[in-house]
């Protein structure tokens, strides 16, 4: 019953996507092309020999950076899908308000939107994976593990962000999040260099963000080097963000939408 109701809310997102899909397809193809060309090929030519072998990827910087960029994409998709669309659904377009006049409840409205975020995260990560493979960034089929990892990471970002977007009244906080959270996380998440190269205090801070754990998982997975304990640790940490984020989002949706 409740799944069926959530699917009705999901249908809205699928339906309105007909309007914007062209733009998002271009973005999800163009972004990997630009990043892989700049980081993998451009920067990669400088990182060679002994320096490169310290990365543990058979000397290829491209193979080092490609799985991490899949994770980064998932993280950013999760963040952006949970920012303006959520606020617009409450404040501007009031999509949620319209839905709540029907049999749908706040839980269905939230779950339907989350289902859509899942789809978008899978979509952008898969696009990155395919283009990365064409560039030669993935040595084996093990790279396919990056997809479930990307999904877990993407939702670890999207769920708390959804809760925050439903809570905040000001869109200006999104610009601040972009500047002070998304960009620094992107730079200091182990995507471009191993976190162990950072001074210890910075390294510890970097490990607080979900992205670092997603990057570590994706990289190990792509190289077929997932080890049980670290994997459990990373997955557990990401799952914690998901669970807390979901719990908060549910509470805040209820408070905001059923005053």
């Amino acid at each position, binding site marked *: 019953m409740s799944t*069926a*109701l959530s699917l*009705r*809310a999901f*249908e*809205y997102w699928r*339906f*309105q996507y007909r*309007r914007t899909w062209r733009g998002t397809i271009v973005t999800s193809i163009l972004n990997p092309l630009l990043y892989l060309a700049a980081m993998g090929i451009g920067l990669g030519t400088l990182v060679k020999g002994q320096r490169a072998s310290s990365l543990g990827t058979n000397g290829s910087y491209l193979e080092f950076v490609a799985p991490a960029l899949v994770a980064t994409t998932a993280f950013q998709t999760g963040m952006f899908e949970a920012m303006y669309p959520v606020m617009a659904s409450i404040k501007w*377009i*009031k*999509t949620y*308000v*319209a*839905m*709540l*006049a*029907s*049999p*749908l*409840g706040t839980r269905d409205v939230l779950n339907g939107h989350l289902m859509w975020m899942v789809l978008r995260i899978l979509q952008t990560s898969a696009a990155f994976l395919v283009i990365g493979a064409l560039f030669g960034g993935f040595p084996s089929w093990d790279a396919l593990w990056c997809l479930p990892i990307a999904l877990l990471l993407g939702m670890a970002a999207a769920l708390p962000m959804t809760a925050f977007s439903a809570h905040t009244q000001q869109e200006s906080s999104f610009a601040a999040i972009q500047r002070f959270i998304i960009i620094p996380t992107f730079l200091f998440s182990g995507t471009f260099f191993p976190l162990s190269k950072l001074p210890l205090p910075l390294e510890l801070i970097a490990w607080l963000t979900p992205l670092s754990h997603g990057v570590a998982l994706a990289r190990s997975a792509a190289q077929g080097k997932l080890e049980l304990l670290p994997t459990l640790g990373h997955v557990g940490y990401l799952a914690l963000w998901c669970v807390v984020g979901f719990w908060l989002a549910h509470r805040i949706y209820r408070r905001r*939408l*059923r*005053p």
Partner: protein
Amino acid sequence: MALIEAKRLTKRFGDFTAVDGIDVEVSQGEAFGFLGPNGAGKSSTMRMIGCVSPLSEGTLRILDMDAASDGPAIRARLGVVPQEDTLDMELTVRDNMWIYGRYFGIPRSAVKERSERLLDFVQLTDRADSRVEALSGGMKRRLTIARSLISEPEILLLDEPTTGLDPQARHVVWERLFRLKQQGVTLVLTTHYMDEAEQLCDRLVVMDRGRIAAEGSPRALIEAHSTREVVELRFAVDEKVDLGPLQGLAERTEQLPDRVLLYVRDGDSAVAELSRRGIAPQSVLVRRSTLEDVFLHLTGRTLVD
């Protein structure tokens, strides 16, 4: 049978009591109005009836179900026209109908068929493929009404249905709502327009500060709380009006900054009596009592923000 039955309905937001224990009953096929100034608790009441806002106290039964526990089942049989439009501006008129129908789980073919019929009903067929953004305020309102009817609701809730519309657009909306009423749809609406209440409502309550100040048909309310006619006297701006000579002329006399109102049964004989007493205002107007007189009498003339 009462379709809506509220007992001691109460809504609190922290320390503030928006709705203070009101009793309301709405019967099948009736057009029922909540009338009141801003902040009287009309919208809070409507949101509770719409099952999107939990009650703080009291009981609320709608269509023989409990609003507190059967929200989704009740909402499936209600149509809602909210105070602020919740249309998707970037979708077309037809797509707005489509997606809204899907929220109710109405089969695709039925949504299509009903959309065409309802767009025709609100005279928007020729705009079906326009984006909502491009519509005028009146058209958006009509679309919201058409959309609310897609589930063929038994009760239609309208929160200030014509606020912000020009007179032509208001009359079109009224006329459509009147037709719905004739088709047997129960209408529940809030308004602060007296003419709207008189046009549409069989019965209404006047709300003030969360309570019901009066209840009845527009005619009965006027009879109970006002006189048949009102004489409006205007004096020159700087003239100091002495109410003394007006004594005993009216059932109730009210002095406003710019005029004096005499509430009387027979306006013409009151005017005759005025000249007999030698009172000569700058202008005299005799008119029928309206709901507005009742409203202002019951809720006061102080500006509510």
